[in-house]
Each structure stands twice: as C-alpha cells, then as structure tokens.
C-alpha cells in the first residue's frame, strides 16, 4: 500500500512535469464548453416556459449538464498522453522496473484529475457570471460526482489508448463511442423534451443518471433517486475502468 502511494506520487510528478510543459491542452479543453456556455445557453432562455422543460433557470439546467460533458469528452481524450508515453518507450521502460502498475494509472489520473477540476472551476466561474445559481452543498457533492465521472472516462481513455496505440485511432474511437452517449444523456437538451423511445434508450446510458443527478444536486436535492443511482453506477464503472486500465498497462507494448 505504501509502495502504491509512493510510486503514484513519483508517477504523478513525472506526468505533471510533462503536462505543465504543454499547457495548451488545458485551454483547448476549456474552449469547447465556454463556447457552448456563451453561444448556446442563451438560446435555452426562450424554452424556459415550454411544457416539458424542467424547472430552474436555463443556466441551472444547462451548466451542470455541460460539466458532465466536460467530464466525458475532456477526460475522454486523456489517453493522448498515454500514447505519447507509449511511443517514447517510457511505459516499456517503467514496466521493467519494480514500479507499481496501478500507480502508473493513479499518477496519470492525479494529473488529469487536477486539470479537470481546474476546468470545472473555470466553467463554474463563467457560469456564475452568466446567471448560474447552484446550491453550495449541492455543487460540492456535484464536484465529487464529476471527479469520479471524469476519472472513469480517463481510465477508459487510457485503456482504449493502449489498445489502439495511435492518436488518430483514439480520437476516432472516443468520438464514435462517446457522442451517442452524450447526445442520449440529456446534456444538450433536457430529456423531458425527448420522445418516449429515446427516453427509454437513455435509461441504459450511465451518463443519463450523472446528468440527472447533476441537475438535482444543483437544485439542492441531495436525496433524489437520480443522485443515489448516479453515485452507484458511476462508482462501479470507476472500479471497472481502473481495473481495465491497470491490466492494459501491465501488458502494454508499442
């Protein structure tokens, strides 16, 4: 256990050095949601009165969903770093040392997690300026849920990166797998507006629960069904993806 923590800290420092020397990725990661906030959210204002639109202001509906989207897409591309590390031979070199394999994953997760939370914080600030008014307690718990969701997606991305071993392949796979999940989860427009068929399909999408939970938490509804379900589902997925990523790095070869 001590070894895992120690090695995780060592791997974190290394990945942090690499990422801090390449800050452009953080800003690219921020550009997409800021764009949506400034250019799309205002359009939702006119929908507020429409039957089927959930209660709460446009920003209170849209911003939490957008934060979940950042967790999915932003963290979804976390695997790019891994491909770089694979290509340079770094991962192979580490595999011949006694370094803990799960620590290799945790080290990257810590960096991606840190960057991700900075992005969420910036998005929160922009949202607050535009009219987003979350309940404080709810926002804190949402931050936890977002962190776990982001880390799940990051691990998924690492495992996928170690499978396809190529940036183009990773970008294509993530887009292919993740776009339907995002569209079906109610991020863009609340699913209460969707036809019944899509709402039913969305029940099988883990991210639907995360999005519903995010809106509930922002409204201060801690005990909501969606919140409990989201934490359980995302929690289980987190464990599974960490396992998958660790297994993949154990055998990783360029």
């Amino acid at each position, binding site marked *: 256990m001590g070894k895992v923590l120690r*090695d995780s800290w*060592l791997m974190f*420092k*290394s990945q942090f*050095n*690499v990422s801090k*020397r*390449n800050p452009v990725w953080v800003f690219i990661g921020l550009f997409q949601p800021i764009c949506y906030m400034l250019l799309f959210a205002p359009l939702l204002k006119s929908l507020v009165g429409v039957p089927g639109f959930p209660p709460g202001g446009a920003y209170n509906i849209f911003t939490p969903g957008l934060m979940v989207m950042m967790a999915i897409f932003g963290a979804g591309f976390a695997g790019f770093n891994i491909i770089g*590390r694979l290509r*340079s*031979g*770094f*991962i*192979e*070199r*580490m*595999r*011949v*040392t*006694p*370094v803990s394999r799960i620590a290799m994953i945790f080290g990257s997760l810590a960096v991606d997690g840190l960057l991700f939370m900075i992005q969420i914080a910036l998005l929160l600030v922009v949202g607050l300026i535009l009219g987003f008014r979350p309940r404080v307690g709810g926002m804190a718990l949402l931050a936890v849920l977002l962190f776990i969701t982001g880390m799940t997606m990051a691990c998924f991305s690492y495992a996928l990166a170690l499978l396809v071993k190529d940036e183009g392949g990773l970008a294509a796979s993530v887009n292919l797998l993740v776009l339907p999940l995002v569209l079906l989860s109610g991020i863009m427009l609340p699913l209460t507006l969707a036809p019944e068929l899509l709402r039913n399909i969305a029940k099988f999408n883990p991210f639907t629960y995360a999005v519903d939970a995010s809106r509930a938490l922002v409204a201060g509804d801690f005990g909501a069904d969606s919140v409990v379900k989201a934490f359980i589902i995302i929690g289980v997925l987190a464990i599974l993806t960490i396992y998958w990523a660790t297994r993949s790095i154990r055998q990783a*070869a360029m």
Partner: protein
Amino acid sequence: MRVDTLSQLHTSADATNSGSPHATALIKTKGLVRTFKSRKGTVEAVRGVDLEVREGEIFGFLGPNGAGKTTTMRILTTLMPASGGTATVCGLDLRRDPAKVRRQIGYVSQVGGAEPMETGRENLLLQGRVYGMSAKEARQRATELVTRLDMDDFADRLVKTYSGGQKRRLDVALGIMHHPRLLFLDEPTTGLDPQSRARIWDEVRALHDQGMTIFLTTHYMDEADGLCNRLAIIDHGQIVSQGSPETLKQEIAGDIISLGLDMQSNAVEQATSLMRERPFVREIQPTADGVQLYVSQGETVLPEVMRTLDAQHIAIRSVMLARPTLDDVFLRRTGRSLRESNGNS
C-alpha cells in the same frame, strides 16, 4: 531494495573469471519459443533458443533484423511471456518470479524510454526512486552518472532537445542507475555516429571491468567482434552458432596468407611443396601472382611461413594476411551474408 555498492560488484567479479565455464550462469534458457498470432497467421519469432550467459561477461546476440533478437530480449526482461521453453535470469525462474527478476536487471531498449518532456536528470531521479532509492541517494547517483557519462552540459535540458548520441548516453545511465547485476542492451549503437558509438563502447567496457554482466543484441559485426566475450548468432529465430568471436571465426573460415612470388622462377611449386606438409595449412591455392595459403592462426604462423620460404631463398615480393570476418561465419552457417540481410550494416 538496498542499492548495491560498487565494492560488492567488484567482489562478485573477482570470484568468477569473466565468462569462464565455472562462472555462474546469469541467464539460462532452454528451448525458448515465442509465437505471435496475426491476421496473416502464426509467426514464430523465436524457435527453441538455448542460451547461457555467464556472470561477468559481455555476451552478444548477433543477427539480421527480424531474426528474433529483440523478442528474446523482451522475454528475458519480463516484458513479454514466452510461448514455450524455460528461462532463468539471475537464478530466478522467469515465469514464476518476474518481479524479483526486475530488481536485478537493467534494460536499455532500442528507443531508450526516456521521457522527452522531462530533463535527463528528472528522468534519472524517477528511475532511481522507483527502485527504492531515497531522494538523496537518487540525486547523488544521478550526479555521479551525469559526470561519468559527460552529460553535464545537457543533463538539465529537456530530453527532446538531445542528439542521438546524447540520448543514448542517458539511456545507458537510466539502465545502470540502480547498479544492476545484469544489463540488457538492445541495439545500443544503432543509428549513432561513429564518435557516439565509440563512447558507448567505452562505457560498456568500463561497466564490464567493474564486474557487470552485459547481454547485448546487435546487427553490427564490428560491435559483436570488438565488444563481446562470447556470441550467439541468431537467424530466423534459431541460434546457428555460439562461441567467442575468435572461435567462431577460426572454426569456420581460417585466415588467408596471400604471397606475391616471382612468377618467372618455379617459386610457386617450391612454396607449395614446402607448405603442403605444414599442419597449420588447410589448403593451398595458386594465384595469378603467387599463392594463397588457407591457415589457422594466421598472425602466429605468418612469421614461420616467411622464415621457411626465406631459408630456401624463395623471393617473396609481397605478403597479405586476411582475417575472416563474422560475415564469413554467418555466410557459412546460413548461406546468406549478414551485410546483405541488413541492407547495409
């Protein structure tokens, strides 16, 4: 894991003769096999390799690209499981105790594995610390290696700015950071300029002098010849020859003494009859301007040849001694030239 001190390495080197048959075998494989399944079918990269690398020696694995050298090395460094056969590294079973094996070995892959977006020193520190060194121990050792390998000028620059030779020196430093007993070098000088190659060779020899056992793969004959105590020649996943470079060359080809003689006289007949009975002469070939003698230990017998012919007053116009090369060895065993198999080695 405690860091071994150099004095411990010296002791183990004293206890064994470099590469003598009584030295401990640090690598022992029997019938090592590795097959890959791809869409096109099954590829047998390694087909039954029997290897022994003794403590204190520099052992070379020579063969053309695609022969199975790197695959064998990746199996021995625990990066990949064997499909069949057995192997022990540093006395530990590869299949059962890979984690223990990793603590004893150092590995420098063909690409090296340094993180380009960190400095050389940062890479060294990480390497030391994952082997259990404290921050202080790692810093001291890193400084020691930076000085030893002449990396002071660039150790604190990002690795991505390094030239090929600089990077290779860092790669070797990374491999020996934790004082391993056994060092694996995969194609250590491929793609380097002659100066950098010489530097790496010097470092390998220095490590050998300090008692480290080194297992390297190469497709360069001069590297195998000049650096290694013993070699195994591998082609298409199988070992075709094993032994010291000298033994391999003598066994196969023999040296050629080319004598230029006065063609007006009967010098050729005289020389031929004189040399025919000598035990070290395998074959005599008349040439356009003299005679060629195929001999063993050419450099030792040449003076005797000269003296014998001189004593009978046979005028020798010119003499040339040609040594066999490992390419001759490879050619004899596989029917192909190593040089041609590589394109231009």
